[in-house]
C-alpha cells in the first residue's frame, strides 16, 4: 500500500512536470481563463452598445455570473480534463515511456490514478482562476469547485479510455474533439427550449446548467438584451 502511494506520488510529480513542459497541455489550461477575460470584455461592450444602464446591469449581474460560471465550468472540464488525460497518456505511449514505467514495476492502475489526480487538480486550479476572473462571490467558490470535480469525473473516465486507445498525440487530438464538443453542449442550452432540454441531460448538464432553463423561465427574470432570444 505504501509502495503504491509512493509510486503514485512520484508519477503525479512527473505528470505535473509534463503538464508544464508540454505546450498543448499548458496552453489548454490557459484557454478557459482567456475565454473568461474575453467574455467579460464582450459582455461589457455589448451592454454599453445596447444602452444598458448601470442599474440594469447590476440587476442582471447574478444572471451574467451564472452564465459566465456555467460556461467556464464546461470549458475548463472540456478542455483541461480531456486534454491533460488524453495527451498525457498518448505522449507516454508515443515516446515509449509507458513501457519503461511498466518495466519498472509500475502498474497501469497507478498510472491511471496519477493522471486522473493531476487532471482533477488542474481542473480545480483553472476553475478557481476562472471564478475570480468572472468575479463570482466568495460564497459560491466552494460549491463551484465541488461541481467542477464532480462534473469532471465522467469526462476523465471517457478520456482515460480514449487515451489508452490512442497511439500517439495526433490520434489524441482527433479523439479529444468529440469529448470537448459534448462537454460544451450546456453552453448552447440558452439558445432555445429544445437546446436547453438536450443540454440538461448532457454529461455536464447537471453540474453547469445555466439560468436559461425552466427554473429561470418560472422566475420570469428578463434576459439581458445582449443574449440571443429563445
Amino acid at each position, binding site marked *: 500500500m505504501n509502495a503504491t502511494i509512493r509510486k503514485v506520488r512520484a508519477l503525479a510529480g512527473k505528470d505535473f512536470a509534463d503538464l508544464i513542459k508540454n505546450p498543448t497541455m499548458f496552453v489548454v489550461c490557459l484557454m478557459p481563463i482567456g475565454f473568461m477575460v474575453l467574455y467579460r470584455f464582450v459582455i461589457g461592450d455589448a451592454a454599453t452598445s445596447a444602452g444598458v444602464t448601470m442599474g440594469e446591469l447590476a440587476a442582471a449581474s447574478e444572471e451574467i455570473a451564472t452564465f459566465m460560471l456555467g460556461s467556464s465550468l464546461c470549458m475548463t472540464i472540456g478542455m483541461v480534463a480531456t486534454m491533460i488525460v488524453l495527451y498525457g497518456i498518448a505522449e507516454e505511449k508515443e515516446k515509449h515511456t509507458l*513501457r519503461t514505467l*511498466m518495466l519498472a514495476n509500475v502498474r497501469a492502475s497507478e498510472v491511471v490514478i496519477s493522471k486522473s489526480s493531476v487532471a482533477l487538480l488542474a481542473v480545480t486550479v483553472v476553475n478557481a482562476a476562472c471564478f475570480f476572473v468572472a468575479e463570482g462571490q466568495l460564497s459560491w467558490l466552494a460549491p463551484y469547485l465541488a461541481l467542477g470535480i*464532480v462534473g469532471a*469525473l465522467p469526462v476523465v*473516465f471517457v478520456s482515460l*479510455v480514449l487515451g*489508452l486507445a490512442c497511439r500517439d498525440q495526433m490520434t489524441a487530438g482527433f479523439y479529444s474533439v468529440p469529448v470537448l464538443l459534448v462537454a460544451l453542449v450546456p453552453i448552447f442550452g440558452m439558445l432555445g427550449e429544445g437546446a436547453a432540454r438536450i443540454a440538461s441531460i448532457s454529461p455536464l448538464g*447537471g453540474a453547469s446548467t445555466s*439560468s436559461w432553463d425552466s427554473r429561470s423561465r418560472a422566475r420570469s427574470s428578463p434576459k439581458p438584451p445582449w443574449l440571443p432570444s429563445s
Partner: protein
Amino acid sequence: MGLAIEGALFTEAAVAPLIVTMAWIAAGALMFAALFRRLARDN
C-alpha cells in the same frame, strides 16, 4: 451552477441535475472498467 448561486444546491430542485450527473459518472466508470484491461497495453 445556477442552483448553487441561488443557494438552492441542497433542495429538491437539485435532485434531477444530481441524478443526471451521477448517471454519467456511473456510465463513464462502467465504460472504463469494461475497457481498461483490454486497452491498458503499450504500443
